[in-house]
């Protein structure tokens, strides 16, 4: 399966198993979603389970919260993460805090799915990676898969989770892994080991990072599309890298990260999002706190530039293999 099919399969499984699961969002019902993630689900489960909504993200999340308080388990699709901002007040002030401020009386198991990231010629309004805006909010989990197998398992766990989850989908990975080189012919998920996705229901635990490649020279902490860029960069440089796919940014699997960096003594952090106050800053601080006496070199960060995501200069903006390689060299040579 590709990632779109895997996500569709996850939602299909959950709609079938749990009558309280409902999907809602712009274009998701009759049309099946602009990225086709919900294709066929309204036909199968009906218009009361898969709701086309008005184009008002604050209203989508606001009503989803009320539905969840009344016993449903809504999964909201925000068509692009770039359009989640009208819903921020509902997410910050209600969704993430209901359980805490009502001392457990009220809670809302809402999952918000949002395609994120660049590499699709989307310009500044279809390419953003806003994860760190949400990891800063206490009370919501933030997840980003990097392949179809993880996408399905993590989405099922997100929907089943009794806490709210923001589920960010790196849209450049929907149809195939992407190593950061736009000039190479696109490849599908067919050949990739994680393109093999069971039809049946399975969950993968939230809050657990995954080791993608094992190595001992340097640790690379990354997630989403950059997982594949980092694998390609390490291979190109011929370095033995312990590449960790963070998978869940909040709550963060500090143990897996610390163990790896304590072993390798070197750390490169890579994400597509802008650098300043990006999630990499939290990762770097965590590594510093947990691994300072093991570090042989300054922690390196590879990230999007601190500019809006440009349309014309996408490949100058996107932190491709060259930027990862440059950072790896600094980390390995100092």
């Amino acid at each position, binding site marked *: 399966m590709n990632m779109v099919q895997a996500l569709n399969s996850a939602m299909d499984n959950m709609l079938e198993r749990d009558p309280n699961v*409902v999907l809602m969002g712009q274009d998701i019902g009759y049309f099946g979603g602009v990225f086709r993630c919900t294709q066929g689900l309204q036909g199968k489960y009906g218009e*009361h*389970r898969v*709701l086309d*909504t*008005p184009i*008002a993200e*604050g*209203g989508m*999340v*606001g*009503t*989803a*919260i*009320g*539905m*969840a*308080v*009344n*016993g*449903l388990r*809504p999964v909201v699709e925000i068509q692009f993460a770039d359009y989640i901002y*009208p819903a921020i*007040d*509902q997410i910050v*002030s*209600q969704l993430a805090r*209901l*359980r*805490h*401020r*009502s*001392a*457990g*009386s*009220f*809670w809302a198991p809402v999952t918000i799915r949002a395609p994120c990231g660049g590499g699709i010629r989307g310009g500044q309004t279809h390419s953003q990676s806003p994860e760190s805006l949400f990891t800063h909010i*206490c*009370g919501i*989990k933030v997840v980003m898969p990097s392949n179809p197998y993880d996408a399905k398992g993590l989405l099922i766990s997100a929907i089943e989770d*009794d*806490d709210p989850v923001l589920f960010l989908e790196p849209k450049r990975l929907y149809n195939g892994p992407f190593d950061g080189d736009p000039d190479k012919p696109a490849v599908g998920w067919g050949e990739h080991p994680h393109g093999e996705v069971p039809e049946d229901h399975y969950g993968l635990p939230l*809050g657990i990072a995954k080791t993608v490649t094992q190595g001992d020279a340097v640790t690379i902490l990354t997630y989403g599309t950059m997982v594949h860029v980092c694998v390609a960069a390490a291979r190109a440089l011929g370095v033995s890298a312990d590449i960790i796919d963070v998978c869940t940014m909040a*709550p*963060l699997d*500090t*143990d897996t990260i610390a163990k790896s960096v304590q072993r390798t003594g070197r750390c490169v952090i890579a994400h597509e999002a802008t650098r300043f106050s990006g999630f990499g800053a939290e990762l770097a601080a965590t590594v510093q706190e947990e691994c300072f006496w093991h570090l042989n070199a300054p922690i390196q960060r590879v990230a999007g530039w601190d500019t809006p995501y440009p349309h014309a200069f996408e490949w100058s903006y996107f932190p491709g293999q060259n930027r990862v390689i440059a950072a790896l060299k600094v980390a390995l040579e100092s």
Partner: protein
Amino acid sequence: MGRRSRLHIPQAPARPGDRPDFSYLETSPAGAVARPNIDATCQEIEPISAALIRVLGDDDSAVGPWNPQLGPEDLRTGLRHMLMTRIFDERMLRMQRQGKISFYLKSTGEEAVSVAQAMALRPSDMLFPSYRNQGLFFARGCNPVELMCQCLSNTGDMCKGRQLPVLYHWKEGNIFTIAGNLAIQAPNAVGWAMAAAIKDEDNIAATWLGDGSTAEADFHNALLFASVYQAPVVINVTNNQWAISTFQAFAGGDRGPFSTRGLGLGVPGLRVDGNDFLAVHGVTQWAAERARTGAGPTLVELVTYRASAHSTSDDPSRYRPDSEWDDWPLGDPIERLKKHLLALGEWSERQHHALQSELEENFKTAWQEALGFGTLTQGPQLSPDSMFDDVFKEMPPHLAKQRQLLRKTES
């Protein structure tokens, strides 16, 4: 020189030192507004959407089609709960002035809104209040000790010390947790109502927000989703004229009544004298039945006046005449219902005084009981440890670690 645009800057009708001026308030005589069938179309209701529905006439009698025909027992219950609300508010304000609680916010003058509306709804209907709806809790039978403990942030606090005073909730009474953020609960109410319809249940949701809060996007989101899905919900705008110092004209109140905000979306609106217990009850009953029987949402504007300061942090003498409340054309909701009961021969001044003394005595006892659970500074104390609970259902490692650090640094 050609004509050019100039901004319209809304003006409050009167400022400190001025004579109060309520000439802007459009009213209708009691009994004058028709009562449409509950399944009438929005177009059929539109002609009355801006009129002011009133039942209690100047002679204290109940007249017209909106009279809910309540028996004397219900009227006395309504009076009791409104009086409870007012006395509770006054007592808690004093407690704030004495430094016993950090903050308070009264609903004086608006008691009929919450009390009559709660009485017109079923106990299983879900309420999504704003922060000036304490009457909902009394009308639904919440023990005042619970509310006091919340204001004290003590060991009996339903919020475990996590919320500002008055931001209550009451799960057993089907009252949602109150936010400080304005209008944010309105789409939640619509979603709750949508879920009831999805599950084929006949409970409805009701929500409250102020005139000032209608400016927020969430009010418009709520109307839109309620309209699109015909959700079984009643959206109430308590127009008490003032949002702190912001006169309701800054939310567009001088461009047309708030009751008409939904008409373009096909959401019918009713505008009701919010200080007329019977009219509020009758209108709410109508809107609730409409929602419950699948005829869709209603927007209700309750015209009232915020007799007190916005909160204990506010000084209204800086922006409005001190005597405005005395001149408010729609009077005092408690006085009006009392006079109606007196006119019916179902109440006496002696009974009224006895009720007042009884309630004051009850609250005195309740306050002592609440103090037994501690205050912010004295008596039993909540453990600061508890702030790490309920952020998530299960505590993740980083919070357990921070809790450890707190314990270490506080010991």
